[in-house]
């Protein structure tokens, strides 16, 4: 791994209002350390029955493309055009008005014009014009057309993994052109040749064969949970059990597997468990469907469907009534916008109804899946939770809207409602960096690999910058979020840009605030940090 420059050095080369003299079609990709992702290990592709290029790395001058690579790519493009109206349309209607240009966090952090969403889409639009259109071939560059070459493939690999599918551009586009859709399809097309990223494919293999992206075996999950439960017992004096693979439970709870084992996700998990115990929810988790997140989605939609099929077999097997989903961004993009199409109709489930408040979740009447924030907000609104927000008084919290739950779901008020009830110090980041205009953590869509640190820190710069602002202005020390990838990547981002800010899942704060029946006096939060008034020496 290359050494990452210091924060004050990193963005010195960023120019937002200057562009190269050279035509963008003449600039070639350079694979410099810290700025590209390693290619997939061929064994991973073998195991999953996918084509691959053998052992190679992107920085190699000559990529070992198969003989018929061009035909295969063109065929793949044609097929995607036939299958996706979105893609076909987005290739036709862009007027290059440039409204999206400075909306992309990667552009803001690198100044690389090919990170302007418009130009990212031009990387493929130009090929469709140059290879399929008569006029494109005739007028060439003047019509924005160019032929497909090996350099183009390199460019695709570089830039379609320098898009985190956050959809911020799509908010500002007058035609709603969604670069995430283009990126998803382009990654699929690269997959046709076996070009993929190691960091996003290994989790796919683990999720497929074992059930979750880190490859936790069922007994390990159980052990981890027990370890967390013993922490809970120590902090609160309450002994809790977490039902695993229990048949006949009312609710199947699925959450990203990072919540089982990785900081700070584990604290969020402790929050969930405390909440469920507090209200006496009849639920189970599953070690078979132990991954709510979906690394398949960062590769191909087919993988995405494959991996999440398990959740519904498990729901059927365990005969649950409905499914509750934990905090996660892209997981909820896939759940909300794809699941009902892939796995519906769900006649074996029932319309979700909160057993505590009796609220029927009408908005999930067909899919029968509820977001934990919707569930908890409903509980709080009905006064079913005993909360002591002062237990979060040692925290000054701001809230990061995850890209996917914001722009692909519209869940803005629920988490804020919860936050206002579980903590006393909540401030918003600047208006243009939150809600539908929120900035990506810079490492979404499976690019949170260590070897990619420079690009990640650059891509996360706009988000970090907004956090830094509230940190300096209001003394914010906690960045709350409802996304497992955020919990991992924002932590790294904060360490780099705003070191004194920690990242927390929303339900960790809920867990801190919940007054459990029969609990002992709490002196620390779920991370063993002293509560306000219990600091050492007092």
């Amino acid at each position, binding site marked *: 791994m290359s050494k990452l420059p210091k924060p004050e050095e990193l*963005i010195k080369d960023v120019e*937002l209002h200057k*562009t*190269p003299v050279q035509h963008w079609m003449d600039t070639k990709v350079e694979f410099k350390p810290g700025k590209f992702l390693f290619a997939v290990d061929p064994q991973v592709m073998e195991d999953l029955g996918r084509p691959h290029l053998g052992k190679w790395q992107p920085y190699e001058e000559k990529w070992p493309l198969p003989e018929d690579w061009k035909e295969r790519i063109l065929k793949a493009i044609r097929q995607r055009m*036939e*299958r*996706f*109206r*979105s893609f076909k349309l987005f290739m*036709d*209607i862009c007027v*290059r*008005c*440039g*409204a999206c*240009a*400075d909306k992309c966090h990667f552009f*803001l952090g690198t100044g690389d014009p090919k990170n302007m969403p418009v*130009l990212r889409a031009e990387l493929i639009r130009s090929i469709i014009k140059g290879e399929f259109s008569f*006029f494109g071939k005739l*007028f060439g560059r*003047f019509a*924005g057309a160019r032929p497909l070459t090996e350099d183009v493939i390199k460019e695709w690999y570089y830039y379609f993994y320098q898009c985190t599918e956050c959809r911020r551009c799509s908010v*500002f586009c007058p*035609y*709603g052109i*969604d670069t995430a859709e283009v990126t998803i399809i382009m990654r699929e097309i690269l997959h046709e040749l076996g070009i993929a990223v190691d960091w996003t494919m290994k989790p796919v293999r683990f999720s*497929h064969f074992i059930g979750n992206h880190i490859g936790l*075996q*069922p*007994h390990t999950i159980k052990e981890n949970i027990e370890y967390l439960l013993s922490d809970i017992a120590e902090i609160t004096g309450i002994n809790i059990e977490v039902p695993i*693979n229990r*048949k006949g439970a009312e609710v199947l709870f699925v959450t990203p597997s990072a919540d089982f084992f990785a900081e700070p996700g584990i604290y969020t998990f402790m929050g969930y468990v405390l909440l469920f115990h507090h209200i006496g929810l009849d639920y189970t988790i599953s*070690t078979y469907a132990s991954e709510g997140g979906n690394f398949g989605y960062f590769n191909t939609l087919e993988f995405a469907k494959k991996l999440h099929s*398990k959740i519904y*077999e498990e729901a059927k097997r365990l005969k649950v009534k409905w499914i509750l989903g934990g905090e996660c961004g892209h997981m909820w993009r896939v759940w*909300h*916008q*794809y699941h*009902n*199409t892939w796995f*519906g109709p769900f006649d074996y489930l029932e319309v979700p109804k909160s057993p505590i408040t009796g609220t029927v*979740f009408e*908005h999930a009447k*067909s*899919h029968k899946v509820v977001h934990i924030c919707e569930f908890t*907000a409903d509980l709080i*609104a009905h006064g079913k939770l005993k909360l002591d927000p002062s237990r979060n008084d040692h925290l000054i919290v701001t809230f990061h809207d995850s890209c996917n739950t914001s*722009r*692909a*779901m*519209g869940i*803005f008020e*629920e988490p804020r409602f919860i936050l206002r009830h579980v903590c006393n110090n909540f401030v918003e980041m*600047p208006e243009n*960096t939150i809600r539908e*205009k929120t900035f990506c953590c810079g490492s979404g869509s499976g690019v949170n690999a260590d070897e990619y640190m420079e690009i990640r820190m650059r891509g996360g*710069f*706009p988000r970090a*910058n907004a956090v830094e602002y509230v940190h300096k202005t209001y003394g914010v020390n906690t960045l709350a979020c409802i996304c497992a990838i955020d919990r991992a990547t924002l932590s790294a981002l904060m360490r780099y840009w705003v070191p004194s800010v920690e990242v927390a899942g929303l339900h960790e704060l809920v867990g801190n605030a919940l007054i459990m029946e029969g609990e002992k006096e709490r002196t620390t939060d779920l991370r063993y940090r002293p509560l306000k008034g219990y600091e050492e020496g007092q």
Partner: protein
Amino acid sequence: MWNDLFVSILALIILILVPLVGVGLLGLDYLFGIVIPYLAFTIFIGGLIYRMIYWAKSPQPFKITTTCGQQKSLPWIKHSRLEAPASTWEVGLRMFFEVFLFRSLFRNLRADLVGKRLVYGSAKWLWLGAILFHLGFFIIIIRHLRFFVHPVPDFITLLDEIDGFFQLTVPTLYVSDILILLGLVFLLLRRLVDAKVNYISYASDYFPLLLIIAIVVSGILMRIFTKVDLYAVKELAYGLVTFKPVLPKAEIGVIFYVHLFLVSSLAVYFPFSKLVHMIGIFFSPTRNLPNDNRMVRHVNPWDYPVKYRTYCEWQEEFRDVLEEAGIPIDDDWCKETQKKA
């Protein structure tokens, strides 16, 4: 890129020369007055219909609404009907604001890096330029109905009066003409001056702007400076739309043919260029679909079953550790699913 601008100017000059030579020198009035306009109109309509069918041939497999506001969820949370529409009616409203008022463009921001700090400011100029141009174009098209319809309906007379309200010249200069020119010149200058937009501009971006500017300018010239015989113009235009095309006996003036030929060129160019965004916006799946994914199932016509690792395969692999950890084993389910298979 300057090359692209020069090529567009060259293309425009050729398009202006064609009718100058064709009508001015060769006297091909019939070709330029009747044949080409009919042909252009047919290609325009036919081309747009072709585009629509071309797009419609591909399904929209997933409901990928871009939500820019609060979803409809719990009844006590205020739902943003416009930004996260949940019903057809709300989608219609969202589309109306997109199509007629460019709502998404109105959100536009400008990002600047001041030292180490990113700052965002409002940036409505693009929206203003775009709306001036599009609205101006729309009014001008409606206003042109007076050449095609007889007797002239009252609403056009009214529109004409409002548009000519300032009575600055004789005949009056239309407000819409000024606005569209302002809009167009702004959009063109923006492409030349703004480094980012300049970097992404092709000849196919400059050309339509220049073409439309030329159309507007030739129209204004014809109205105020080098005037033409309007009676003859109406004879021709009315003849065309009533399918009794005649060339007027009186000479119209070659500038009219330039105007007409440029309009015909635009019509032909339209369906095969980025200008199809006029129709495309209605097809945009991030805007024209409701955010009701969990309420109403969206069907993907090419959906296919995928092979995944079933519970039983998984249980077989981990049977030992499951048993050891005391996690329940479920052989009934495996029997049941095997029977079904």
